[in-house]
């Protein structure tokens, strides 16, 4: 059949698949100096830390745990303070924190993105909500702690609420900026081609705002971890924030560093994951950038 072969021919002529694009980007990255410099920076930092705390024992730093001590504790099957890669408690703290962040982050996303889209789409809705948003947004998360404890029945709910708040404002604001960043000409083109309001919403506003939305989600994920730790330090029973504070009180200093590094790694992974999903959904943007 000629039509079938024509269809395959056009498919062969098509641009590279998204996997090919990702592999290409990875190869280019490995070819550049960047990954080696990244590694060098981290190694250098750890070495400096080692020098200050364990080798030279500089007075200012003599209370801090050094990298060798922390590492030894971390990988010990029988850790002196009860937290290492081999203890279930370690994972319980991690899972508790991740689970709280996930609930708060998804709640914030599923509420924040529609609210932001609506604010960008309907002028009246923005008029109602924008001043409120701009007043509530600058309030530091820590200021919300007392109210949050008063407002919610249990610790769990108040910690998730705090985490949610941090996420929510960043998501709403970036989504709104995303809608406002869309060039007027695309709305005109859509109307001219006969689009009805729902098409404008789904086919212009949503995809047009997506790059900003994903930038917002990365920021909101950062805020979520930030607020989570604050909440856990004050009201938690489990979780990495609680672990840090509790280890401080119990004078188990290496555990503090273990929990901090764990937070750093998980935070980084979560934001990389968002980037990955974003790139998957926005191939057009990725291709614009590698050009």
């Amino acid at each position: 059949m000629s039509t079938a072969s024509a269809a395959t021919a056009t498919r062969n002529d098509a641009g590279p698949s998204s996997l090919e694009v990702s592999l290409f980007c990875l190869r280019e990255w490995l070819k550049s100096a960047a990954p080696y410099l990244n590694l060098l920076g981290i190694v250098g930092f750890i070495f400096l830390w080692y020098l200050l705390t364990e080798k030279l024992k500089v007075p200012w730093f003599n209370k801090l745990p050094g990298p060798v001590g922390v590492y030894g504790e971390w990988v010990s099957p029988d850790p002196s303070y009860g937290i290492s890669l081999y203890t279930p408690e370690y994972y319980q703290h991690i899972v508790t924190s991740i689970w709280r962040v996930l609930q708060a982050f998804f709640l914030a996303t599923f509420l924040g993105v529609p609210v932001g889209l609506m604010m960008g789409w309907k002028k009246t809705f923005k008029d109602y909500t924008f001043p409120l948003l701009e007043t509530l947004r600058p309030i530091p998360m820590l200021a919300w702690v007392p109210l949050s404890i008063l407002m919610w029945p249990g610790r769990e709910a108040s910690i998730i609420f705090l985490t949610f708040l941090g996420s929510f404002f960043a998501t709403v604001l970036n989504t709104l900026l995303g809608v406002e960043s869309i060039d007027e000409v695309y709305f005109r083109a859509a109307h001219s081609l006969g689009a009805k309001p729902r098409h404008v919403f789904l086919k212009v506003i949503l995809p047009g705002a997506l790059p900003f939305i994903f930038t917002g989600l990365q920021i909101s994920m950062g805020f979520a971890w930030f607020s989570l730790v604050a909440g856990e330090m004050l009201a938690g029973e489990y979780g990495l924030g609680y672990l840090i504070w509790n280890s401080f009180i119990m004078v188990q200093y290496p555990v503090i560093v273990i929990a901090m590094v764990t937070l750093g790694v998980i935070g980084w992974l979560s934001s990389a994951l968002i980037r990955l999903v974003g790139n998957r959904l926005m191939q057009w943007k990725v291709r614009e950038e590698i050009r």
Partner: protein
Amino acid sequence: MNTAEALSVPAPRGQISIRNVSKVYDPEGARVLAVDNCSMEIAAGEFCVVVGPSGCGKTTLLNAIAGFHGITSGEILLDGKLLCGPGKTPPPGSDRIVVFQNGALFPWYSVLENVTFGPVVQGVMPEREARDRARELLSQMGLEGIESNYPSEISSGMRRRVEIARAMMTDPSVLLLDEPFRAMDALTKTVVHQFLLDVYDRSNKTIFFITHDLEEAIFLGSKVYIMTTRPARIKTVLDVDIPRPRDFRVLSSAKYIKLKKECIEAVHEEALKAFKAGEREMA
């Protein structure tokens, strides 16, 4: 006429009457008179070009026909029906498709998704059929092989052609083009000019084409309206009786050169006025 017999559309649509149209921006405040008492009769299937210096009010006129904003006085009729009048602004619609000055392909959609956008949102045909039609149209227009590329991955000349294809997909009565080839280099321009001429010869749609480039106007148009500096008024109307189909050889024909000379004289006067007005504003 051979082209007329080969038409797929039986009765040509898209007759536009512009009657004494004026447009004042900001009527309460600065009162910028952009279009002043303009009248044009554009026959169905005519290739009409409007030339005028930058800032004279060409886009203002086109946007009124497109339905992006209203007019202050006068009326515009499409196929005998009132389209715009004072207090009546038609919603933008697919019977008057606009190809924009700076291009408006959706960057988040592939070429194919862009071209099928019109029929899909209008619900006139299922998506599958729209896709088949779009492929067919793109290959007729010499644009095969880029269906799954994003607009950022193709050249600017290609993008303009795809945008014209997207407009043609909705089978409009009128094609409104607002300086579509403005930012293009001379070589790309010759390609897109030929492309537009072919599209016109094949479809016989009414075309309302805006430009500030005289040569382009004479090469493409059947009728050329030369506008004055702001406020836009019609200074001269020129019948370009160069037969179609046209190609680049027209550019060296005696008739073309003669028309161009007439035009340049008319426009030079306006350009000078615009320049002086500009100097006055600066002073």
